[in-house]
């Protein structure tokens, strides 16, 4: 029997708090899960620093990847025998679902921003490169790794296959919304996934939703909207991300400073600092390693690096106020001047964070062919864009969804001995000076 068709003698199951069970019968999937590159995902948290806000959010990209695989497996069971669905693509879909996040790095969002990396690039590199994952995929067929990489990169010829893994209502989102809701403990993020799976229909080049399932999809869009604001855009999590970015930035700056010597050579980071990262370097790094360095860097001679690491490790985060760059640019410039006067480096301690700095995306109706929207399939077979048919989705689609926050270390400000400078800063930030009792 060809390797691609090999089945395990008995079905394996993973207990899963979101989907109850994740079922594996294909030998290929079982072998992929066992590779070191996939096991590495156990050491990358799904939500990065969110656990500093919602303490339960310790789940990993490993959990999520299995979840996405399981959802795709269930969708394909429903698609079997339907027009437009070619069951020959089943293993390709399952492999792509399982491996879609393989290239995420430690605390990936901040990490990628500072070091100008792209996890999608590394996902593809792991799949087509010299790795154990590639070895397994090669056994299916010489072209199979490239096909899996193409599906994940959304450049696979059959866009129906792509849309299962990546569209505005895909297995990836359906898993992370439910999983993130479960682990953060929030009450949003829940929707009737079973119903959505039942009303998904394959057509020529995308998955559409049978119109009778519209209300289940509305619920999904609402969950997504609420999760963005309540979990993903949470200002405390953003504070932790700001500190994280500044730690990476500071460590890089110190490495490039010929006069600075780290107490411990930052071996794992050197190729990142020097911007010549190899696949092997990348795969070696995970959150356990990064946290190890943060732990040690608390003892570094550089006051900024040690302070930032201490803040991150002990959750002594930056405070924030709302910031409107249109109305408050003069305030910002004045704050920069006052921070410098107070001996607090504004590059690291006065930071504007915008919603567009965050990695999450809203539902978009896809006007002008920007991006494929969710389509409802009407009883006559015609397709209608969801927000044109659903008042609820339409109202969310037009909502203002952006904000900017200004982050700063209130503890350092309150400890300033120069009362005049301290009061001037607090006056701008809070509208109160000497008597301020800000926490």
């Amino acid at each position, binding site marked *: 029997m060809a390797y691609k068709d090999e089945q395990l003698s008995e079905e394996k199951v993973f207990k899963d708090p979101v989907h109850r069970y994740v079922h594996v019968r294909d030998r290929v999937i079982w072998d992929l899960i066992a590779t070191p590159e996939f096991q590495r995902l156990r050491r990358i948290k799904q939500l990065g620093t969110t656990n500093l806000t919602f303490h339960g959010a310790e789940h990993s990209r490993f959990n999520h990847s299995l979840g996405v695989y399981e959802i795709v497996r269930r969708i394909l069971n429903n698609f079997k025998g339907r027009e437009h669905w070619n069951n020959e693509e089943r293993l390709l879909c399952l492999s792509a679902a399982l491996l879609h996040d393989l290239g995420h790095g430690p605390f990936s969002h901040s990490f990628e921003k500072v070091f100008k990396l792209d996890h999608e690039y590394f996902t593809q590199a792991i799949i087509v490169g010299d790795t154990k994952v590639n070895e397994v995929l090669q056994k299916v067929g010489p072209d199979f790794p490239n096909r899996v990489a193409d599906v994940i*990169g959304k*450049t696979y010829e059959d866009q129906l296959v792509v849309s299962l893994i990546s569209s505005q209502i895909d297995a990836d989102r359906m898993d992370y919304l439910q999983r993130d809701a479960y682990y953060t403990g929030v009450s949003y993020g829940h929707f009737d996934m079973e119903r959505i799976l039942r009303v998904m229909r394959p057509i020529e080049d995308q998955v559409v939703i049978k119109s009778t399932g519209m209300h289940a999809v509305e619920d999904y869009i609402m969950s997504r909207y609420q999760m963005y604001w309540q979990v993903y855009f949470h200002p405390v999590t953003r504070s932790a991300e700001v500190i994280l970015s500044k730690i990476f930035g500071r460590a890089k700056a110190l490495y490039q400073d010929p006069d600075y010597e780290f107490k411990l050579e930052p071996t794992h980071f050197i190729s990142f600092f020097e911007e010549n990262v190899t696949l092997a370097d990348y795969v070696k790094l995970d959150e356990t390693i990064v946290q190890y360095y943060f732990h040690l860097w608390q003892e570094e001679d550089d006051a900024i690096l040690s302070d930032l690491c201490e803040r991150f490790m002990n959750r002594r985060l930056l405070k924030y106020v709302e910031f409107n760059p249109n109305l408050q640019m003069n305030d910002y410039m004045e704050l920069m001047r006052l921070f410098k006067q107070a001996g607090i480096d504004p590059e690291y301690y006065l930071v504007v964070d915008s919603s*567009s700095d965050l990695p999450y995306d809203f539902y978009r109706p896809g006007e*002008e*062919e920007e*991006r494929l929207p969710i389509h409802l399939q009407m009883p006559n077979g015609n397709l209608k864009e969801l927000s044109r048919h659903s008042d609820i989705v339409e109202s969310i689609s037009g909502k203002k969804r952006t904000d900017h926050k200004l982050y700063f270390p209130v503890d350092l400000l309150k400890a300033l001995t120069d009362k005049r400078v301290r009061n001037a800063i607090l006056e701008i930030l809070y509208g109160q000076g000497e008597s301020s009792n800000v926490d």
Partner: protein
Amino acid sequence: MLINHAKLIHFFQLTGGVTGRKKLQKMIYILQKSAVPFEEKYQFHFYGPYSEELTLRVEELCNLGFIEETREDKANYFQYHYDVTKAGEDFLKQFTLDMPDITDKTELLQLRSSRFLELVSTILFFEHLDKREQIEKLHQMKPKQNFTEAEINEAYQFIKQIRST
């Protein structure tokens, strides 16, 4: 602080306004691929390279009153137009941007249709492949667009031109 926002305002100011969200997406992508330091992250989507980050950043600029968005109903879809406002110009004055002069590049882009820019940006997305594979991939990914050989040749010429401008 907000450097990437300022770069976009600078771009809108140079173009004198952009019509079409798809056109905007492709213009910024092509500039990026021509060594202009826009930092928005792009992925391949159904209609070619697309940046959610760019969409959200433009939305932020509109909400801040730095860019004005106007919408025109075109029967099957809405078309959007973007212009810099006085507040946007004032905001921009506070920055010294480390950007090359992109006046000529933006002029070249403005003259082209969004269909042509979709073709160019798709070719650029696959530029790590050899030319034969690029064209093969283009036809695979965009079968409904029916790009002609003449259009494809023109796109390659355009890429050379914009990169050398």
